[in-house]
């Protein structure tokens, strides 16, 4: 590793190297998965992440600029700032709502919108980690996206009720069908239950 390398972060599925003004995200092999499945997942997710993250940016959603894609690794712009979970409050939650609405309005589902996959930088919320993203305009897909966000927020933050309201205020500002999404989220919560 050269001397410009600042920090290495090991996430659940990738090793992220902060390198000057860039970030290199490398999806590492997972020994628990058989090679066929592992290689396929890593290749697909890397390709998809680069493509959809660029599309999201083009649609006006704050995301890092993709600089290069190579096999299982993506080099992208480095966004300075803390993950949103460490600065969470109602203002940030509302900003997240607005950003997720902008993404959904562009026909994109993030797939993993947890508070660790968002960076707070210069008053804006940046979305990162598009490895599970997809193109989908359906209410169902948007509902699952919002459900995933609520679930991690509820599991990690005691101010969940207020933060949820703030998120919805931000989401509904430009997404007029927010009430339908809330209905969908409640429906999704009721599934996956014993009988």
């Amino acid at each position, binding site marked *: 590793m050269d001397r410009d390398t600042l920090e290495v972060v*090991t*996430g*659940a*599925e990738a090793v992220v190297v902060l390198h000057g003004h860039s970030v290199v995200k490398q999806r590492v092999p*997972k*020994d*628990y*998965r*058989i090679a*066929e*499945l592992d290689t*396929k*997942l890593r290749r697909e997710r890397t390709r998809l992440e680069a493509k959809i993250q660029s599309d999201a940016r083009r649609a006006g959603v704050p995301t890092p600029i993709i600089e290069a894609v190579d096999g299982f690794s993506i080099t992208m712009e480095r966004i300075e700032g803390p993950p949103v979970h460490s600065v969470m409050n109602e203002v940030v939650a509302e900003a997240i709502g607005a950003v997720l609405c902008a993404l959904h309005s562009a026909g994109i589902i993030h*797939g*993993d*919108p*947890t508070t*660790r996959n968002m960076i707070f930088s210069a008053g804006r919320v940046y979305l990162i980690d598009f490895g*599970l993203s997809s193109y989908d305009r359906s209410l169902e897909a948007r509902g*699952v*996206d919002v*459900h*995933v*966000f609520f*679930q*991690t927020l*509820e*599991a*990690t933050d*005691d101010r969940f009720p207020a933060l949820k309201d703030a998120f919805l205020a931000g989401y509904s500002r430009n997404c007029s069908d927010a009430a339908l999404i809330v209905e969908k989220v409640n429906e*999704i919560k009721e*599934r*996956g*239950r*014993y*009988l």
Partner: protein
Amino acid sequence: MIVLGIEGTAWNLSASLVDDDEVLCEASSAYIPASGGIHPREAAQHVANNIAGVIRQVLSSTDPRLIEGVAFSQGPGLGPCLRIVGTAARALSMRLGVPLVGVNHCIAHIEVGRWKTHLVDPIVLYVSGANSQVLSYRQQRYRILGETLDIGIGNCLDKFARSAGLPHPGGPKVERLAQESRNYLPMPYVVKGMDFSFSGIVTAATEALKSASLEEICYSFQETAFSMLVEVSERALSQMDKSDLLLAGGVGANKRLQEMLSVMCAQRGARFSAPKSEYLQDNGAMIAYTGLLMLRHGIQTPIASSGANASFRPDEVEVLWIETH
């Protein structure tokens, strides 16, 4: 403190006596469907026919005057089964003159796992017939980080096994057949954050029966479904900054799933542990032990609120017995 516990949410009716240190005795009676899967009415009939027997068996092993509480599975589970178990538990608690405590079946799986593995504050992967969840304790509650968006992994395996003509329970048979193949057929891999979905795999596997061998399908089914479960478990470890993983629930007896979780944990320097199979499957000891923890922390269930709760969520339970640092 000695507590008597009764489990009877679905297939295994079981009563047990535990104290703070060990399981003193257990008596079980499993319901084995004559054909097809678990039929709620037949399962309830099984509970009704055998509950007096299993309770009598554990009572005969000790002086009933030493029993300080009666715990029972209050839910989630099949309503008709839960109601019979609840009725028996209420009668027994009144007869013995000791407190009654209603236990959440999912929490009981976790607590018996913590008890037997000595993991204090792990991420929990709970996989059974109807339930598939990733949980993490935080501030008096087990929080559900992720769960199935449709059916539980066990039901998913059983459903496929039935369409392949394998007798219930299908999981162990699929596990054995899977060992006979190394040929992977791609199947729908659906992970959304820490949630996941299995219904696509059932459809794909059933469809594949027309063109591929049963061994190949079982192998591909397990590799796909289990990889999803291991992936979300790893996400949970990473998200919550925890370094212990506990496996709970009946599907946890699957050796391939255990192997994959253990490899994942080894690769990231985490600790993996699972109790023995008898404490992974539904058992009376887990209910008795969780009841004991609850009673030790002043929690009792008044008769008026002891009704069956078929859709009892683990995050509804206030957990007062965990000390983290």
